[in-house]
């Protein structure tokens, strides 16, 4: 498939000779929604703003549908953008907010009316056309912002943390609405967020970024289950970690020695690492009273009830581990065995 958005060797410098992004490459296919995920300062917003044209890159090219966008002024790019702060025009009605882009394109009055009504219908705000942004709730405002961005039939939709100012319940609703509209209209989209769940739920592919570099690109399931770097593992909630030496490798299974324990873990790389970090999630472990294969011994030092799960902090020879058990599981005290499933122990080579 041809890349629709093609970013090549992008370099951005806010301060001269100090690149925020360097040699950055990313392609997005037509109709795809790609999430840029990472902590603040990782370069995800810089990437988005470069595509929008608000930042002039120091080097590299940005192409959309084979057209060179690199030096095109932002108002000539036909890109729809949805901002974290909604960025609605406070002095205009909802109708005029949505009509703004069409007026800039000198479309006739009648055509504007028809198009705006149609798009307001899509986001279920047809009854709010005469209101002002201040009279709307946060969720409604963001739907106006979405309508305003899609009404111009953009070549590309950009989302800059669009849900960060909404409360948890609305965030899920809006997330689904954005995804539904994006798929229905078949618009290619780039979506910046620092929220893992949001990125996984909304996108076709996730790009995990850290310090201006891409750590991993993949489908949400792959990012969630098979992190390839320690950063991605940590960022995706693999909170438990220990070091181990590799004794042998058979296909994607590593035999490991970690102090007195002999364990098996999954490794996705092609090389033969000597020393690895092993990650696992709190829910990837079964606690039991009896010793078993692929397990660690530990001592419960804290048990806290958290609703759906019970959290145990277990002290082991390899460090303290956080374990979630179902709320209805038997209660464990003092000595426990942590049974680890090989496919859920992820080994990552030391760089």
């Amino acid at each position: 498939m041809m890349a629709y958005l093609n970013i090549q060797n992008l370099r951005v410098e806010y301060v001269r000779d100090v690149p925020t992004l360097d040699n950055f490459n990313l392609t997005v296919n037509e109709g795809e929604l790609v999430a840029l995920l990472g902590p603040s300062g990782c370069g995800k917003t810089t990437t988005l703003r470069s595509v929008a044209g608000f930042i002039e890159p120091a080097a590299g090219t940005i192409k959309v549908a084979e057209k060179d966008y690199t030096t095109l002024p932002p108002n000539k790019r036909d890109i729809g953008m949805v901002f974290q702060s909604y960025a609605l025009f406070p002095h205009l009605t909802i109708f005029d907010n949505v009509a703004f882009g069409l007026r800039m394109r000198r479309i006739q009055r009648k055509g504007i009316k028809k198009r705006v009504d149609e798009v307001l219908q899509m986001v279920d705000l047809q009854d709010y056309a005469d209101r002002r942004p201040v009279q709307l709730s946060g969720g409604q405002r963001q739907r106006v912002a979405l309508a305003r961005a899609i009404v111009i039939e953009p070549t590309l939709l950009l989302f800059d943390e669009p849900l960060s100012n909404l409360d948890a319940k609305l965030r899920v609703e809006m997330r689904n609405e954005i995804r539904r509209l994006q798929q229905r209209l078949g618009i290619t989209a780039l979506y910046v967020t620092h929220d893992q769940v949001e990125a996984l739920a909304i996108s076709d592919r996730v790009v995990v970024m850290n310090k201006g570099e891409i750590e991993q690109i993949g489908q949400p399931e792959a990012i969630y289950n098979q992190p390839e770097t320690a950063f991605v593992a940590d960022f995706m909630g693999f909170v438990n970690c220990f070091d181990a030496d590799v004794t042998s490798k058979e296909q994607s299974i590593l035999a490991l020695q970690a102090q007195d324990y002999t364990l098996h873990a999954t490794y996705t790389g092609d090389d033969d690492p000597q020393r690895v970090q092993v990650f696992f999630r709190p829910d990837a472990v079964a606690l039991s009273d009896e010793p078993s294969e692929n397990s660690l011994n530990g001592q419960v030092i804290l048990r806290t009830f958290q609703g759906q799960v019970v959290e145990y902090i277990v002290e082991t020879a390899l460090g303290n581990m956080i374990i979630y058990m179902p709320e209805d599981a038997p209660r464990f005290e003092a000595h426990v065995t942590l049974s680890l499933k090989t496919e859920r122990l992820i080994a990552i080579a030391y760089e």
Partner: protein
Amino acid sequence: MKTSRWLYFSVFLLYFFLLGPFVIIFIAAFGAESTLAFPPTGFSLQWFARIVETQQFIDSFWTSLWIGLGATAISLMFGIPVAYALVRFNFKGMSAVETLFSAPILVPGLVIGFSMLNFFVLFGRIEVMTGLLLGHTAILFPYSVRVTSVSLRNLDPAVEEAAVSLGANRLRAFMLVVLPNMRSGIAAAFILGFITSFNNVPVSLFLTGPGITTLPISMLSYMEYYFDPTIAALSTVLVIFSILLVQLAERVLGLSRFI
């Protein structure tokens, strides 16, 4: 309880010294004597009639009005772009520019007036009216920049970017999105500027010339020769005029926040 009694007392003192002089002027303006006296012995409106009969006051009122409106408009025309540059861009020497623009607030008015006298009248041989207009524009400029900056700072920069992403160039985005959202700041700057210019003495003192004078200056020179309550009457009119202006501003600006 004791604290609150002290509080009431100090508030009373404050208001007494702030408002007391006004009250005395206000009452004296309606006096019947031909010299300013308090308390007056009779009631008369003749001093108000005297204002209108004195051509000097009428002429200087119009001068002050035009200078006030003109200088405020010009200072805003230049002040808004400067405010925009200071708020939106980050450039080298920005703090120096900011300090430069606040200089007319910090430098004593007499010094400004004196230097402008030298510059405009003696050196540049500029007409009195033009000199006054330029002088007042200069002293209003910092107010224009500062007051409009506030409303610009309150406007999310993303709003402008949204306009640009929707196809507006920088200038159109400014005219269609930024300027309309600055209107309460601009109105506030206009009223503040006008009042500042209308009340100004030190700069006008140096820049007024033969036949052309502003209202405060003509009030000063009138008082050198007469001590009748005309000035008290005129002051009363000016106070009421200012209060009405501020009230109007509050109405318009207060309302604009909700519309």
